[in-house]
């Protein structure tokens, strides 16, 4: 996927998250892009590793910065938390160049934004890490995966981990 097309999809993702009331910080976009790429198989082309708040892509971080440099995203800070990244008018023009691409992945985008749009950073960390564990240990039972998630992120209790694993399994099932 070339860069302009990738940027069109990322700005659409940001827009849809924002419309669903998401804070739209970098972590929100990172986790939504992770679900979009790994669960819905949209070929965004980013490498994700397990980092501070779960799956994270340094390439995606660079791309979001490049999108700010090109005027597709703007930084807004509100309250004590990190800033929001919101799409600009120029990003609307960019998206108008890619109607077929946006249509092709429209349902995937909607699925992910419906599932994650109203989640805060702590919830997103749990869910995205649970999805990461799912792909690493697909054959593992829910309790086994919850234990792995709890071991990876000790501040997430076992019961919270189990709940996140259940939620992710439901998403995987609905996504199939």
């Amino acid at each position: 996927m070339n860069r302009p097309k990738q940027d069109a999809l990322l700005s659409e993702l940001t827009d849809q998250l924002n419309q669903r009331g998401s804070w739209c910080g970098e972590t929100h976009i990172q986790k939504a892009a992770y679900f979009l790429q790994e669960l819905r198989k949209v070929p965004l082309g980013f490498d994700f590793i397990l980092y501070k708040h779960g799956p994270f892509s340094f390439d995606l971080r660079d791309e979001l910065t490049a999108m700010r440099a090109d005027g597709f995203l703007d930084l807004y800070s509100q309250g004590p938390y990190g800033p929001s990244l919101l799409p600009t008018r120029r990003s609307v023009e960019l998206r108008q160049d890619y109607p077929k691409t946006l249509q092709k992945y429209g349902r995937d985008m909607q699925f992910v934004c419906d599932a994650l749009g109203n989640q805060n950073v702590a919830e997103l960390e749990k869910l995205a890490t649970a999805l990461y564990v799912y792909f690493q240990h697909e054959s593992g039972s829910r309790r086994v995966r919850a234990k792995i998630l709890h071991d990876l992120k000790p501040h997430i209790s076992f019961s919270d981990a189990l709940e996140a694993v259940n939620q992710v399994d439901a998403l995987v099932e609905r996504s199939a």
Partner: protein
Amino acid sequence: MGKDFYGKVMLLMELIICVTLCALDMPKSRKIPKSEHEVRDPIHIFIHFDSDERRVIDSRPLQRLRHIHQLALTYLIYPGTTHKRFEHSLGVMDLAGRVFDIVVKNQNVSEEVRRFLPEINQDNKLMYWRSALRMAALCHDIGHLPFSHAAEDKLLPEGWNHERLTKEIILSAEMKPIWEAMTPPLRPEDIVKLALGPRKAGLKFSRWETILSEIIVGDAFGVDRIDYLLRDSHHAGVSYGRFDHHRLLETLRILPTPATREPALGVEYGGLQSAEALVIARYLIYSQVYFHSIRRICDIHLCDFLAQWLSGGKFSTELESHLAMTDNEVTTALISAAFDSSKPGHEAARRIICREHFRVMYERNPADLAVNPESASAIFSAAEKHFGAESVRTDKYTQRGGSYDFPVLQRDGDSVSSLALSETLKAIPIFAIDYVFVEPEKRREAEKWLETNHDAIIREGRAKEDE
């Protein structure tokens, strides 16, 4: 009392020393070995290290850095920038140790952070990690190719970069005995992790290791960046890269991130302005020094030269060959090729040595970006068709890393996002360049051609490969 008296006193003292040494059964010439050493440094005044660390400094991979320019060919534009990666590595080691001492100091660590990072409560572990951090900082650049970053993606085999070379050297049989002989012995894998960080190391990181690697390679306060900004501006003779780093270091803390409470490297409220100054310094020195158009085109010519001069067009990744290849070997070949048309890479070498480098014909600008976000690519493609591939070059770079979002410790003990407090951090532009260069012989023609065709190329060249 004359000379005679003092002479007698000196003789008497020497006699006493001889008698004492004989009594202790020690030879007269033996000195107590020095375990602490220091070197002078233009940025940090003195850099201290112990005998274990000196063995690492004296190793071949570190000594090789005495022959790798910190800023590649930048000395062709800023003649003072002939400093090397060696002194930068010492500087990064020194700063890493200082930051470590500040952020783990008892009074600077909250109970919440202690719960997240139990390593902070164990003195023996702290001693180990301090040593590992300093050695990682010292070694973070040992994989650099000659002339540092210049085009390593094109000049190394698939899957290799300078970070992978750094990793291989730290883990090598040559370095292993040095790590084992240290007190306490260091695990080379830990040094790799801290030197390269989670993005490049390809290893799993604990929370503690993530924080420590941030001290070296972090986006906001990495000491690698702090040292190179100060050092490069000093040698370039520019003031852009300077900021109050003493104040910044003193106010660095490990703090909970506001949204998740996950610990991260941040700053006390009083240090926020120093952090802003660092970010401004970075923006200015990138614009004025690192991405100066002539520096960039010289790097491209150098890459063209190396692709023809190197066997198979690539640098070797084999350890002995890597250690034997420095800027000195490349410079000798470059000068020789510049004046001998039969030598490989002659044309590119001549462009550098005789200062006949390509000139800027087009540069990214806001008006064109509004019409076409890939305006420079469109101009480059059209120019390549019109003037021929050998006559034009292009160069593109956009600042990496995220926004300058880090926790700031407020007076009430709570931490908030830096971007909620600082208008300055929000306002700093993202640094980006996009150049198209043309050979000097065609510069006038290119200017006229661009004047005539600019609008049509920008408009029609907008990529719309929709699915």
